[in-house]
């Protein structure tokens, strides 16, 4: 190999890049390594995002077809795998209409800007031990900051469209973000309390060092983060900002052709970003209890990422969309108190652990058991307290349509 001491150093793609940058540093001007590392990082991130998006869109449509007892795209190529390419070509060929009386600048700017938050998040995500573009020491806060910018772009799209439905979508998006940003940021705080660092690779190293993933120590936080993240990126069942059965297509009603395609792709980029963040913070990133010695870390990372994205797909295929007021009430009345309790419990545990100098091997399993039990108990108890889960009104098992006496395919049962 050109830049490597051993061929197996290639398993972490950060190694050859680091070697290459060293060569540049020795033989070039001082600014060259910085520019080169930025360029390599950006190209690598886009090279990961675009093909992943192409494949995942197809996989999602097939899987949702499966979940909803239909076939999904199956005409273009074997199992319809060229469907995304065909759709992209179609979107590029369609006319990009700009309606009258739109706010032209903002209208054109929004679909371009929509990519920025999703891509920016990947700058701090550690794909492998050395594979991180910018290992910020305020990485967790950076995630919260970048995530909160998304809403402005959606608002720009909705407001500039000069369309009532688009405006309604924008308004829903803004009110949703105000509600869900608080639980989202507070759950990240739980991670920081345990790991004592805000750098994402620092969090992964902590999980590697203690041989435990934070999903065990912060199960409640993971669930809350998952929900609020799916609100933030506008995925069904929380996609009330673009609910097609209520407000046409929400904020992107007036967008056609590739401008709509940009919003569509941006949503997937943001989804990957959220999945990557959850992988790094809660699922141990590139570690897998020793497997990372044999398999390249970035493969483990991507495996976990796609597994988490499958959860998004599953939720989208199974759950009905929430009403706008239900979604708000859920955040303020249910998630926020639970997050505060979660922070309190986490802080208490870390204090107990640090002040008494207990051994991590004993304490962490105990904390894990306690926290999982607390997560389940608290959510059930709080839901009961709010009067949501009424067991007497709930069927004991899922009822089929025909048991309820409905008509299926014109055939009476």
């Amino acid at each position, binding site marked *: 190999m050109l830049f490597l001491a051993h061929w197996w150093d290639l398993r972490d793609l950060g190694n050859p890049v680091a070697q290459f940058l060293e060569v540049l540093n020795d033989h070039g001007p001082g600014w060259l390594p910085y520019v080169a590392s930025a360029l390599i990082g950006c190209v690598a991130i886009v090279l990961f995002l675009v093909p992943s998006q192409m494949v995942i869109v197809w996989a999602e449509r097939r899987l949702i077809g499966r979940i909803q007892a239909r076939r999904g795209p199956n005409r273009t190529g074997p199992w319809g795998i060229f469907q995304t390419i065909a759709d992209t070509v179609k979107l590029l060929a369609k006319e990009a209409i700009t309606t009258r009386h739109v*706010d032209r600048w*903002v209208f054109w700017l929004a679909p371009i800007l929509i990519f920025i938050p999703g891509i920016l998040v990947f700058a701090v995500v550690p794909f492998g031990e050395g594979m991180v573009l910018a290992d910020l020491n*305020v990485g967790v*806060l950076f995630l919260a900051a970048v995530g*909160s910018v998304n809403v402005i772009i959606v608002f720009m799209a909705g407001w500039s469209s000069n369309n009532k439905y688009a405006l309604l979508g924008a*308004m829903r998006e*803004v009110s949703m973000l*105000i509600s869900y*940003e608080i639980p989202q940021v507070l759950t990240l705080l739980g991670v920081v309390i345990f790991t004592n660092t805000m750098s994402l690779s620092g969090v992964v190293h902590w999980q590697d060092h203690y041989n435990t993933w934070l999903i065990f120590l912060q199960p409640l936080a993971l669930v809350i983060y998952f929900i609020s993240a799916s609100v933030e990126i506008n995925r069904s069942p929380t996609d009330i900002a673009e609910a097609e059965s209520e407000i046409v297509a929400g904020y992107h009603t007036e967008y056609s052709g590739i401008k709509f395609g940009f919003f569509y792709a941006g949503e997937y980029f943001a989804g990957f970003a959220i999945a990557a963040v959850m992988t790094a913070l809660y699922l141990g990133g590139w570690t897998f209890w020793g497997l990372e010695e044999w398999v390249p870390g970035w493969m483990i990372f991507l495996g976990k990422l796609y597994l988490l994205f499958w959860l998004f797909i599953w939720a989208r295929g199974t759950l009905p969309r929430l009403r706008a007021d239900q979604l708000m009430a859920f955040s303020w009345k249910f998630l926020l108190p639970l997050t505060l309790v979660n922070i309190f419990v986490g802080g208490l545990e870390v204090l107990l652990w640090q002040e008494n100098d207990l051994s991590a091997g004993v304490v962490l399993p105990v904390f894990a058991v306690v926290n999982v039990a607390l997560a389940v108990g608290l959510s059930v108890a709080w839901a009961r307290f709010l009067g949501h889960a009424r067991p007497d009104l709930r069927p004991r098992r899922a009822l089929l349509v025909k048991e309820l006496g409905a008509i299926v395919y014109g055939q009476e049962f």
Partner: protein
Amino acid sequence: MDDTGTVVAFWILTIVTLGSALSVVIVRNLLHAVLSLILSFVGVAGLYITLSADFVAVAQVLIYAGAISVLILFAMMLTPRTARDNAETFLQGPALMLAGLTAATIAGVAAATDWSEATRGPFATTAEAIGEALLNRYVLPFEIASVVLLVAMVGAIVLVRED
């Protein structure tokens, strides 16, 4: 501040920040004004980064570009006015005075600060140092601020409660 990259970044960020701040006042469309304001906030965050205050920079983006501007957008959207233009108001005089006072304060602080790293040493701008300062030396202002926020929140709830 000696290497070329920082100097170039500083001038670009300064131009972006001041240009967008100027357009907040000049443009007639209220949405464009708010968007310029957001760009200006982001530019200020960039300036913080050139001062190696990364925590403050990220907090700036999170709070100003992410939260405050969203509140402004929310207010803009829910204000029942037919013409949402960035028109002249009767608050011009007070606003000018306030802006002048703020500028004077910043200029005074900048003049009083010892900018030479050799004599002063680097600023403690990490999250840890800021947290320590907030909970030890500046705990009273910190608590007062939180009480003020609590009062505002309770007041808002009392105002809109129906029963």
